[in-house]
């Protein structure tokens, strides 16, 4: 399938390795990947922080850049959540019927990576090899907004060599929440504390998830504690093979 990669501004700038892994993985599975270079940011930060009029041009831009593709894939649950669940709200705010129609059309074609693989293309074994002890944190937007369900876990279970351990109280928010992590830093860190305790309880060496934003928060906490546990995006695990 020909898919457009929506890398997200966050991954593009801070986590290029996740983008590279996503491309390698999709190509290995036989997809043709396009990267529309006019893409920037979906507007999630603006919209969720309340700067919603400022997000509207970014919504229009996204529709222009990605509107013509049959499938758009992003290695980020929360950015896909923005496009699929909140773009209609932005279009309503802009009082633009045409835009509303366009974003509703587009919404059906935008997928988070794991749901694209499992739910859209029916692949659960991507032929990956990853000989590490790993625990998986299902991020809130993937879980409750996109309802990706067990798709990421199914993919992980089929990775060869992996020692996958269940994360206690996995469904609880890690405390990132976008600008919440800065605006309410104390509460965010209190939530993080419990998440880290659960991660450490698993004795995993790696904590993975489908969103680098949450992982940056969890990983930042682990690193500050010199916990010896690191965070790796799901795409990077799935892209790993015995050859590399």
């Amino acid at each position: 399938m020909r898919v457009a990669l929506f890398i997200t501004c966050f991954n593009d700038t801070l986590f290029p390795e996740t983008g590279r892994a996503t491309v390698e993985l999709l190509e290995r599975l036989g997809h043709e990947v396009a990267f529309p270079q006019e893409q920037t940011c979906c507007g999630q930060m603006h919209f969720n922080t309340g700067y919603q009029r400022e997000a509207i041009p970014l919504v229009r831009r996204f529709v222009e850049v990605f509107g013509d593709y049959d499938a758009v894939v992003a290695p980020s649950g929360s950015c896909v959540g923005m496009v699929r669940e909140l773009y209609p709200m932005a279009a309503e705010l802009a009082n633009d019927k045409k835009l509303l129609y366009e974003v509703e059309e587009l919404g059906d074609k935008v997928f988070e990576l794991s749901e694209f693989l499992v739910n859209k293309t029916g692949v659960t074994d991507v032929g990956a090899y990853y000989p590490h002890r790993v625990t998986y944190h299902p991020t809130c937007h993937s879980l409750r907004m996109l309802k990706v369900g067990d798709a990421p876990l199914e993919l992980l279970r089929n990775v060869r060599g992996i020692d996958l351990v269940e994360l206690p109280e996995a469904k609880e928010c890690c405390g990132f929440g976008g600008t919440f992590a800065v605006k309410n830093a104390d509460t965010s860190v209190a939530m993080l504390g419990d998440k880290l305790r659960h991660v450490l309880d698993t004795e995993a060496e790696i904590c993975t998830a489908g969103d680098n934003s949450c992982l940056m928060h969890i990983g930042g906490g682990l690193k500050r504690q010199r916990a010896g546990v690191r965070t790796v995006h799901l795409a990077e695990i799935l892209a790993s093979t015995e050859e590399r």
Partner: protein
Amino acid sequence: MTIIRHQPEKQAPPDAFSKGRTPTFEESAKESLANSQLRRNLGKATQTIRRKRAVAVAEMPDWEELREAGRALKSRTLRHLDDYLVQLEESVTRAGGQVHWARDAEEANRIIGGIAKSHDAKEVVKVKSIATDETKLNEYLEGEGIAAYETDLAELIIQLAGETSSHILVPAIHKNRSEIRELFMRELGVEDLSDEPPDLANAARLYLRKKFLSAKVGISGANFAVAETGTVCVVESEGNGRMCTTLPPVLVTLMGIEKVIPAWQDYEVFMQLLPRSSTAERMNPYTSFWTGSSQGSGDGPEEFHLVLLDNGRTDVLADEIGRQSLNCIRCSACLNVCPVYERTGGHAYNSVYPGPIGAILTPQLVGIGQSGPDSLPYASSLCGACYEVCPVKINIPQVLIHLRGKIVRHKQDEGGLMGKLDPENVAMQAMGRIFSNRKLYEGAQKAAHIGQWPLAKNGTIHRLPGKLAGWTEARDLKPVPEQTFRDWWKTRGKGSPSNGSSGDGAS
């Protein structure tokens, strides 16, 4: 066991519904987060109730259909609220009750105080009513020389401690047994009291019994009121509600206008949704229904007054996205699952309505444009746990985001120059422009990599400046790498013609 003291004497601290400024959520949360006893009490309580609720809900094969029915019933009622309220007034009047309309808190308090005075009441007994907390009725009555006694065990604890409720269903959730024991010994003058729940309840019972028998006026809230018949309903666990609504000769019920439901039949839905969501019970211990006054039958109060309270609710109704907040049946499930509430507790919200529902209801009821209530929609990571459990399907994250938008627009449009020069606003405007233009965006990526050098040491940023410092207080930060994804993409196409991918859109 002897009880020596009889007068509640402490005043609750002010909140969003009192006059004057309240602290922001961030300010108050700092305090509660540092309280280890509170963290322990709350963590334990919310985790237990959360687990129990999940079990109680899993028993119902049609739970999702019930939620949808609850949502649909509520939103239909709100659409025709004017009609149902008039119908309710007719039904209550027909059954011998009197209906009063209160535009705001002041008017409601004046009406209720007037009724108490007309009966020369110096004391009134109350059963848990958040609406009266919203109007600050107790303080008003005190000013009029009337003592109000809370009869719900938890409300009594709060009243004796001179605190405010920290949960809409378990107001004293932040206190544990031994703290309550100490409070009773101190405030009620009880000697030799253990911290066993039956003993604590007994101490309260001894204190309250006389009040029930001597009070001329009882005051209650309402969970529902049926427009068709005029029947008011209170759902509770201790039986004090039944005493309050039946023993005193005069009963006054204060009810938010959104509590009306069309017909008896609708209880079928709500009585399945409410107990399981709130206390994880199949059915709650006491459900009282009453219709009008006794009208000489000797059954129930001789005089019944129903006070219908607006106090900002019609403004909420006018907001297309915000109005779903009025669906709320005050079950408190959203509080119990909220990871923010679990850690900060209810007091950090500085409102009679704490937790996720409080974060959307409070700023809407008191109006946008005050720093305290305006901080509440930001007291959420938007994790969506509240929406998932809400029995009437209020999309709380959506309303939170909607309110954030309203707050920012209010600041930008009404805040004058200060609003425009607000550092966050300036940064957001700049970033909006950068994201709207590919060249600016790519330039900013480079600038971020170059500009961070004073901050990055050995591949890590340990401290960020200004407003961003909150991040690095407990978290390290990964610096911006040299090569962005898009730079890598540009380099790869050339070297490996074998791969099928294209870089279209390149211009």
